[in-house]
């Protein structure tokens, strides 16, 4: 039956591939952008984060304005117009974090990661490209929606003459900071997705990190929560984008602490990606 097969072991010369083929970081970035934009779940999650940032900011600003007459003097004293308008970020961070997790855990769940890593066997360029595309797209969207939330919020607050302009003290820091915070949280989500390789595990750790550990820590003795608390990602984040009266870290220190968290998570993710079987 095999007589029809010529044992053509003498190699016929083929020139495989196409002219100019080669893996470059720029090409992998381009590929990751294609992947990012071609998933509906990615776009929906991103849209949810936008809606939460702007919608909740507007809601909180509107409610603050309409209840201003009955607001206590103490609450009036801690009121900050900028923070009020971008506060939706404390909720949209979950959507952005989930988006980060999904972008990587989704590839493990479906097996796509094996195709991605077979095409780019050096592996790390894939992670860098994902981080870059995420930072670019989510950074632009998050900062833009923080600005939108700010302007919408201020226009609602100005009905009670509470609104401030973008040139008022700390306004730019808080608005841009809120967008930057979202990106950093999302990158931590990506790192968790790469470390855990599982969507459910990644999202639960994201929730634990942002919403469970901070309140649990505040139940511990004050000496504990005071020394550790400010260094938690969410609290360090609020130090640079929020308005907390009893800040333990300066805005710059908060940014550096959150960047350190992010860098550590990314480093761990990179090591696992490079060293372990896909």
């Amino acid at each position, binding site marked *: 039956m095999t007589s029809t097969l010529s044992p053509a072991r003498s190699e016929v010369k083929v020139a495989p591939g196409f002219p100019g083929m080669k893996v470059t970081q720029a090409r992998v970035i381009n590929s990751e952008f294609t992947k990012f934009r071609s998933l509906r779940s990615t776009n929906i999650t991103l849209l949810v984060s936008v809606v939460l940032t702007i919608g909740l900011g507007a809601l909180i600003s509107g409610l603050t304005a309409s209840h201003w007459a009955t607001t206590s003097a103490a609450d009036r004293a801690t009121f900050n117009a900028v923070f009020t308008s971008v506060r939706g970020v404390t909720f949209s961070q979950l959507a952005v974090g989930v988006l980060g997790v999904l972008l990587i855990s989704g590839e493990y769940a*479906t097996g796509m990661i094996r195709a991605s890593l077979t095409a780019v066997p050096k592996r790390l360029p894939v992670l860098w490209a994902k981080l870059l595309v995420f930072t670019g797209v989510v950074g632009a969207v998050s900062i833009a929606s923080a600005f939108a939330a700010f302007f919408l919020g201020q226009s609602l607050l100005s009905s009670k003459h509470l609104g401030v302009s973008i040139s008022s003290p700390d306004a730019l820091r808080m608005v841009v900071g809120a967008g930057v915070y979202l990106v950093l949280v999302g990158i931590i989500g990506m790192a968790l997705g790469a470390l855990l390789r599982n969507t459910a595990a990644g999202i639960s750790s994201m929730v634990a990190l942002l919403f469970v550990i901070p309140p649990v820590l505040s139940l511990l003795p004050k000496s504990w929560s005071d020394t550790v608390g400010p260094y938690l990602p969410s609290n360090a984040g609020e130090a640079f984008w929020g308005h907390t009266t009893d800040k333990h870290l300066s805005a710059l220190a908060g940014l550096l602490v959150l960047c350190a968290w992010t860098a550590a998570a990314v480093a761990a993710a990179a090591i696992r990606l490079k060293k372990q079987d896909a």
Partner: protein
Amino acid sequence: MIEVSGLTKRYGDKTAVNDLTFKVLPGIVTGFLGPNGAGKSTTMRVIAGLDEPTSGSVLVNAGDYRHAQVPMAELGMLLEAKAVHTSRSAYNHLLALAQTNGVPRSRVSEVIDLVGLREVARKRAGGFSLGMGQRLGIASALLGDPQTIVLDEPINGLDPEGILWVRNLLKGLAAEGRTVFISSHLMSEMALTAHHLIVVGRGELIADVDVEEFVAMASTNVVVVRSPQAGELRGLLLGPDVTITSKEAEVLEVRGVSVEAIGDLAFDHQIRLHGLELQQASLEDAFMEMTRDSVEFHAHTTNDNHTEAPARLAQTAGDRR
């Protein structure tokens, strides 16, 4: 060309591949056979650089694939488990892969046409049938016009037309001088497609031979002899490595003696023959015989055709390891 040398891969205390050494040569289709859990997919994942060998090494086109400059021109891979994001369209899946290596965009449409997925290229890959998924996997393997093609069970789930198409495709790719390495459990198809075979069992090499040779090695090759003097002939043929069975009078089924030897023997002893015919084993028979004691996962049926495994046969397979 793929060179696997002393490859061992353990997962915890499970040894999936044990000291495996073989070469897959360009210009022919090489089949990769072995019972379930024999280590075929594991070996293929190591070839693609996805799993790190515990010891030993693998070279693809004489280089380490993990450091390839143009990976998709070196190796095209179809993995057993679907490696496709279920929510992405086939077109975007292929486009994203093509972009990493700078494969021209026109090639994406070309492979989509080649595998016959034009109509569904813009649909979610998650909705594809098994066969459509296989076609998409084959399309991604061919995307970079690779020198070496490794396909894990490519014809699984394909319709007869698809199987024929894959057979011709693989033969064509090999004829162009490429290295083609495919695993499959469909023996009849392997017999038609492959020229050479690598057979593994429990992670170890059982055979590294051409298909014809492999089939010839099988002791299930039977010579059917018809003779009015069957009883007399039987006495002359009996020997230590010979098995003779007889289902009807005047007919002997002889294993372990060649057609020529039987003919000559009959002539020398003036025994009249009315029929002398070699019934060659199929690849499937040969495979079953060679891997019988390497099968980890046995199905138990009351009507097992292969329970009459003579100890000698198992010995043959054992010696080969």
